């Protein structure tokens, strides 16, 4: 599209008719004003001898004031066209943060989500009547919640019917995709996160942060639960609030048929906001299959978020041995320094014999074209990666992280900007994965999962593991190992879309009592609430169970209203691309200046309007 074409499409073309219309009126006015000044002369004796062109008045030679007024008309027309286009054809995307933290109660009694919905509805109704809206919710993924291009009242109606989810939000990537989509003139975001100043300067993005009193917010939540040998449970508890509080931690366990065991385990603990508390329950001597762990103590009126006070855990342990395919030994990779896992170096030939659910590290080795186990691929060789991904040529020099998906578990407890990466092999992520870390050179980390397991690919070296010598890389390594190992003793999955073994049947909630999860794909199910899911594997001897929880410190820590982290470098050019509307006020300003000049000229000459 040419510059002219783009500028024209950015205006309301029908209002541009004001320019020629105004010009015609001006010409008529000037001609009429000349006609109104009828001059009586003595005789036409000499006038008849003038050239016919002069007496026919076919020529129109207006004075400078005519051009001044024509410029004013044209500029006002352009300004009106621009402003009208700004308001009339504006397509607005309304994004409501529907993550877990939006369920938090406010002192007024309502939830943050209700406040956000109320503000968004009011904004949509008050907007210019011809604006068109599309409503989205952003939690684990961006979901469209209404038809495209609906009116303000219809958008308000759609917003009232929305419900929050129990998932952590992926708001950053949602905003990024909408801003770069190009289908919307503005993106309005309603969230409990803060908006950084730089982000608010983008003309097409408006972030409305729900006002919260973080100082008075109190919440206690279970950060993680793991089963220990001999039937004990390890519970990690977090708390935020103005003062220490006493809480009661209890575990209700059940056998495989769902019958509660008689032995109860409980403990009264002192919670401190300063640091998370890890409590060991049990051991429970009676055999149990799964447990429900809950923390209670803060009164219901005090606590802002209750749904994160309960967690589920299963007792079956598939072990946590991670296989390593690498030209280096585990010692050279620093793996013995990592606690909680056992590492076993294997050859690539042994891969097909691995059982489902196994985890493998491919260090500087090409993974097989089709994954059969959860894999962490570190610095794969340059070339095709499989599943349509690829690895670029290694580049030396320090690469800085420009964009990241902050809510992904791989980046938990991590500040990506502190990553110091000297050698990079830029990645093109496989289809099943998404970009987790990106730099100006390309993607640095990809992560995803499918029916065979989880996949993490890093384009930079994370070994040897040296602990505190390079803490940021070490935390990332631990997160990656934890994520691919899918430690069954903590929780086998998070609420949301979950993948069960291929051919799983009879998928149902074992606890709590809830409708069966909705199947979304061949082996993908929508796990909407935390609990124990039972299913029968294809050809398996006995039903298996898996626990699903909502472990998200980012969401449960209600006092930490972190800012959105959309990379300005990637968004701003797109936002600027649709900026010609900003010309409208300048057109109007210039028009008013010209008008002032015209008035000044008349005033200085002390002549009446229109007088000569």
């Amino acid at each position, binding site marked *: 599209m040419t510059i002219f074409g783009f500028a024209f499409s950015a205006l309301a073309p029908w209002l541009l008719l004001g320019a020629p219309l105004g010009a015609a009126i001006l010409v008529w006015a000037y001609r009429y004003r000349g006609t109104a000044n009828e001059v009586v002369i003595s005789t036409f004796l000499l006038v008849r001898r003038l050239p016919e062109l*002069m007496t026919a008045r076919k020529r129109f030679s207006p004075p400078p004031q005519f051009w001044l007024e024509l410029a004013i008309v044209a500029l006002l027309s352009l300004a009106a066209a621009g402003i009208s286009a700004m308001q009339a054809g504006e397509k607005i995307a309304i994004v409501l943060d529907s993550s877990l933290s939006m369920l938090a109660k406010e002192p007024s009694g309502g939830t943050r989500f209700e406040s956000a919905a109320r503000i968004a509805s009011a904004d949509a109704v008050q907007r210019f009547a011809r604006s068109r809206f599309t409503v989205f919710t952003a939690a684990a993924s961006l979901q469209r919640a209404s038809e495209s291009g609906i009116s303000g009242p219809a958008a308000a109606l759609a917003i009232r019917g929305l419900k929050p989810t129990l998932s952590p939000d992926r708001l950053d990537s949602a905003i990024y995709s909408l801003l770069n989509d190009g289908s919307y003139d503005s993106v309005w975001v309603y969230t409990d996160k803060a908006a950084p100043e730089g982000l608010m300067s983008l003309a097409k993005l408006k972030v409305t942060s729900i006002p919260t009193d973080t100082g008075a917010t109190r919440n206690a939540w279970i950060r993680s639960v793991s089963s220990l040998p001999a039937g004990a449970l390890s519970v990690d508890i977090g708390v935020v609030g103005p003062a220490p509080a006493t809480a009661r931690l209890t575990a209700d366990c059940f056998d495989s048929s769902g019958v509660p065991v008689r032995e109860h385990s409980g403990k009264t603990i002192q919670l401190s906001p300063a640091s998370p508390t890890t409590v060991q329950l049990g051991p429970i001597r009676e055999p149990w299959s799964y447990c429900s762990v809950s923390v209670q103590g803060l009164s219901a009126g005090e606590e802002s978020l209750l749904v994160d006070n309960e967690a589920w855990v299963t007792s079956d342990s598939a072990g946590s041995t991670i296989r390593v395919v690498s030209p280096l030994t585990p010692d050279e990779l620093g793996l013995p320094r990592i606690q909680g896992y056992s590492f076993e170096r294997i050859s690539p030939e042994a891969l097909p014999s691995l059982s489902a659910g196994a985890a493998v590290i491919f260090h500087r080795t090409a993974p097989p074209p089709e994954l059969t186990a959860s894999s962490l691929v570190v610095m794969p060789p340059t070339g095709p990666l499989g599943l349509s991904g690829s690895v670029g040529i290694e580049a030396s020099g320090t690469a800085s992280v420009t964009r990241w998906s902050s809510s992904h578990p791989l980046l938990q407890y991590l500040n990506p900007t502190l990553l110091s990466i000297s050698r990079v092999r830029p990645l093109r992520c496989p289809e099943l994965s998404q970009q987790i870390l990106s730099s100006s050179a390309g993607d640095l980390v990809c992560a995803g999962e499918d029916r065979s397991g989880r996949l993490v690919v890093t384009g930079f070296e994370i070994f040897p593991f040296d602990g505190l010598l390079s803490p940021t890389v070490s935390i990332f390594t631990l997160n990656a190992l934890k994520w691919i190992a899918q430690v069954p003793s903590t929780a086998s999955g998070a609420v949301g879309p979950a993948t069960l073994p291929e051919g799983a049947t009879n998928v149902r909630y074992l606890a709590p009592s809830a409708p069966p999860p909705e199947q979304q794909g061949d082996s993908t199910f929508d796990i909407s609430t935390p609990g124990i899911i039972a299913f029968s594997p294809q050809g398996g001897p006995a039903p298996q169970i898996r626990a699903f929880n909502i472990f998200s410190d980012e969401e449960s820590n209600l006092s930490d209203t972190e800012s959105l982290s959309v990379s300005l470098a990637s968004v701003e050019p797109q936002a600027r691309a649709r900026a010609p509307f900003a010309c409208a006020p300048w057109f109007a300003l210039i028009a008013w200046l010209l008008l002032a000049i015209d008035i000044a000229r008349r005033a200085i000459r002390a002549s009446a309007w229109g007088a000569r």
Partner: protein
Amino acid sequence: MQLSPETLRLLSAFALRTRRSFYGIRQGSHRSQRRGHGMEFAEFRNYELGDNPRYIDWNLFARSDKLLVKRYLEEENVALYIVIDGSRSMTHPSLREKWDLASHISAFASFIGLANKDPVTISVLGGPHSPRFWSGKAFGPLTSFLSEATTMLVTPEAQSLNLPEEARRAATRVTFPGICLILSDFLYPLEQVISVLGAFRARNMEVHAVQVLGKTDQSLGGDLRSSGITIADSETGEVRGLSLDTESRATYAELLNEHTEKIREHCRAHRVQFTSVVADGAPADAGISALTQMGLFV
């Protein structure tokens, strides 16, 4: 019309000067074609029966034995005819400055003439009947006549005139040839201008033509700065548009100058004194200025 004392003082210093002699009506201050008993010797002629013997030059008779009679130049007054163009181009209310200037020049010339006991006749072409004023006491009635003519002519309803015919009619009323002062804008075809002037020249008069132009005549559209205007012909009422730019103004100025030069050339060839004045500013001042340009009053 009221003349200020200052104007009257200025006018008192003027006198009518003729380029040739006429037969006068009464004794006056101008050399007459009549020979008689004046103070200045003119010629001798043979005594004829009936001549008064008192005028025989007896000294000459003694020397030459011839009876010769001495004749002297008579000094008589000169009839001053003032002809004002009363057509629409002079009397239209929008062009009134031309009429005002013409009437002021007429009044001034009349004042000077009457002060020298020259009879003054004002003839307004298309106007009221032309009276004759004989003495300085008649200046009051003369100005009243001009005012009456102004009231009669300077109205929107006035009709256009056949100027050559009106001029011939006025010329027939001339009884004593004298000085004829014609005040007109002469913005009509050259043939008509020649007819008007010829009508009075045919009466053996010393003709002075004074062209009185207005500002809109001199510069098309006057001070207007509009790009286009509508102009109306004061004579016919015809209306048409006009592109009023520098080029059209310049072309009009050339045409006016060409027309005026043709009239001037004609006047020079026929011993008619031609003067062109522009009605700009106060008519009294412009009138005094016009008198000095004419060369008729010294």
